[in-house]
């Protein structure tokens, strides 16, 4: 079980020059990732998704709050325990092109950590080779083709599979996929998503799925939770389908309205909203962070930051003073048929 409570992170601001404004990336985020569970995080660019993922993997520090790993605060772990524990949370990076060392063959990449594992568990050299083959096959690659090759000789989709296989070499119990398919060709995305789905089902891995693509989140974690992040704050959370079908927070509603509709196959949601104005992160409204962009904003929204409260349905929370359920996502066209 991975859990964060009140997680807050502020960046000093890029450029490092004096007089630069601090950037709050996460504000008091609470999140639970149960074993075998899936949590998807959506939000617009810069809302802190990557930061959250990296903190969970132990790759980034945080200012306050706590990160509990199987109930133990990560800050209380010894260095070796931390390393060992964080090893079991692996990050799948968005960019498959830079996630593999260009100077090393896939075999070298795969074997580096397998060897470590083998020596720790007193297993033979042959085991590492076998395991590498196994893992590559697991992600749908042909080991004999991939192993001797350098990353640049593989396609983006293949590389992302290698990245997943590499993450599996340390037998992780959780994966953090940060926009893992954003840079993969559309036709190949589903293949990768399928692997993640399969890993959850077959190996019981838990998955933190960071994405812009709600449908993809639904595909890999239909049974999981969906968190909506806005400017580092969780504004709405709950079971995926609950949030998709009955979003209550205006921000979530805008996000979901923004999903293109396959006109002809789908019918737009009846309450679909117009797109939001661009975010100006130079201004920080005193109350609700969305107040300056919110189509539903009222005077009291500027008074204080709304807390995350129950939205009625089981596990559905939102942070809005004036919530209103809307049906914004598209629904399948009943006549959907592929022949005329």
């Amino acid at each position, binding site marked *: 079980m991975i859990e964060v409570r009140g997680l807050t992170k502020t960046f000093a601001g890029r450029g490092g020059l004096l007089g630069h404004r601090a950037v709050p990336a996460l504000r008091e985020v609470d999140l639970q990732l149960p074993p075998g569970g899936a949590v998807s995080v959506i939000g617009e660019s810069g809302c802190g998704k990557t930061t959250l993922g990296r903190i969970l993997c132990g790759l980034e520090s945080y200012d306050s709050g706590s990160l509990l790993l199987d109930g133990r605060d990560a800050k209380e772990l010894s260095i070796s325990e931390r390393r060992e524990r964080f090893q079991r949370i692996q990050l799948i990076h968005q960019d498959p092109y830079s996630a593999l060392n260009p100077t090393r063959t896939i075999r070298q990449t795969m074997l580096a950590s397998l060897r470590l594992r083998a020596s720790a568990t007193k297993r033979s050299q042959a085991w590492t080779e076998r395991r590498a083959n196994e893992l590559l096959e697991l992600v749908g690659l042909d080991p004999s083709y991939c192993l001797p090759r350098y990353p640049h000789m593989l396609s983006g989709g293949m590389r992302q599979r290698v990245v997943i296989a590499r993450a599996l070499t340390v037998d992780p119990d959780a994966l953090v996929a940060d926009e893992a398919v954003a840079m993969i060709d559309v036709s190949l995305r589903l293949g990768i998503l399928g692997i993640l789905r399969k890993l959850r089902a077959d190996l019981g891995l838990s998955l933190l799925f960071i994405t812009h693509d709600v449908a993809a989140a639904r595909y890999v974690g239909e049974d999981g939770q969906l968190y909506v992040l806005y400017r580092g704050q969780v504004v709405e959370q709950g079971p995926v389908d609950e949030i998709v079908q009955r979003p209550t927070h205006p921000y979530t509603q805008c996000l979901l309205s923004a999903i293109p509709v396959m006109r002809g196959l789908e019918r737009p949601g009846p309450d679909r909203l117009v797109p939001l104005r661009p975010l*100006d992160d130079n201004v920080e409204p005193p109350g609700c962070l969305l107040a*300056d962009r919110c189509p539903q904003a009222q005077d009291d929204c*500027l008074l204080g930051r709304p807390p995350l409260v129950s939205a009625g349905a089981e596990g559905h929370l939102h942070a809005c003073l004036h919530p209103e359920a809307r049906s914004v996502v598209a629904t399948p066209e009943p006549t959907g048929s592929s022949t005329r």
Partner: protein
Amino acid sequence: MVSASPPIAEPQSTGRRADARKRRLIGVGRRLGARIVAALVMIWAVATLTFFLVHALPGNPVQVQYETLLSHGVPPAQALKETRIIYGFVSHEPVVNQYGSYLWQLLHLNLGQSISYSGVSVSHLVLAAAPWTVILVLSGLVVSFLLGVLAGAVAAVRRTSKLGDLLSISGSLLHGIPQFVMAVLLAYVFTTLLPVFPFGAPYDITVIPGWNLAYIGSLVSHAVLPVFAYALSSYGGWMLSMKSSVVSVLGDDFVLAAELRGLKPLTQLRYVARNALLPLFTVFALSIGFMFGGSIFIEDVFDYPGLGHLLLSSISARDYPLMSGTFLLITVAVILSNLLADLLYTFIDPRVRGQAS
């Protein structure tokens, strides 16, 4: 506060803009200040290095100077005073004091007195020599920069043609020739084989210095060879960097975008040129340093009376105050030119400037 409607009102955004501009200005100011402080620290470090260098010299010349004066029957107090005039410090004082008085003298731009040019202050000598080096370095730099950048741009644009190949090869070849070799070759060709250019003085003594054609012509004709020795030996570097810079800028999206928007070829060229030249400024800064260092060779071969020449003559005369003063000035020149280029860069590249906002 409560009444503020969610859409941001116009005056507020103007305020923000002004604020941003102010922040940017403050940023630039801070950056400038930081650079100047860094340069001062660097100068201090070099002064310290020079001080300890003189201390490390065999048979500590300061001590020797003091003893020599004593042996000439000069009373100790007087000897102390004269040694201090020459070096700015006296070596049998505690090191802290020596260092302190050395820095104190430096603060007053006092580099001590030359031994070989007795009675002449080092500051006087280096200041007299510095303009010649600056003339050489700057004109050499400008000539090589212009030639190299032009040739590099052409080589990049025409990189698949014969002309491009030719230019690239010329660049690589010239780049591989050390400055002193270039100087010797030029000297051989143009003072012996075809004696067209004079050398040995910065200008003909029979012309009267001033804003007259004869003087300027004489200055130019005497500087041609050393300047070209510089220019040719650094041309290759400029050419190659410019070529690779242009090639990389040509691959940038905005260049294609400019073409697709139908901008005039000249405008497109300006876009490419400015972007390609920008990274060369860092190289520019470093190369000024290089050239100050390299001026020794050129000045030696062509007997041009700049700082390098002075440094060499101070060394062969074992004129340690002059030597350390010249070395200090050469290094400070490098620091100052780096500072200048750095500041220039800040003003030229909005992205660097933008870091402040």
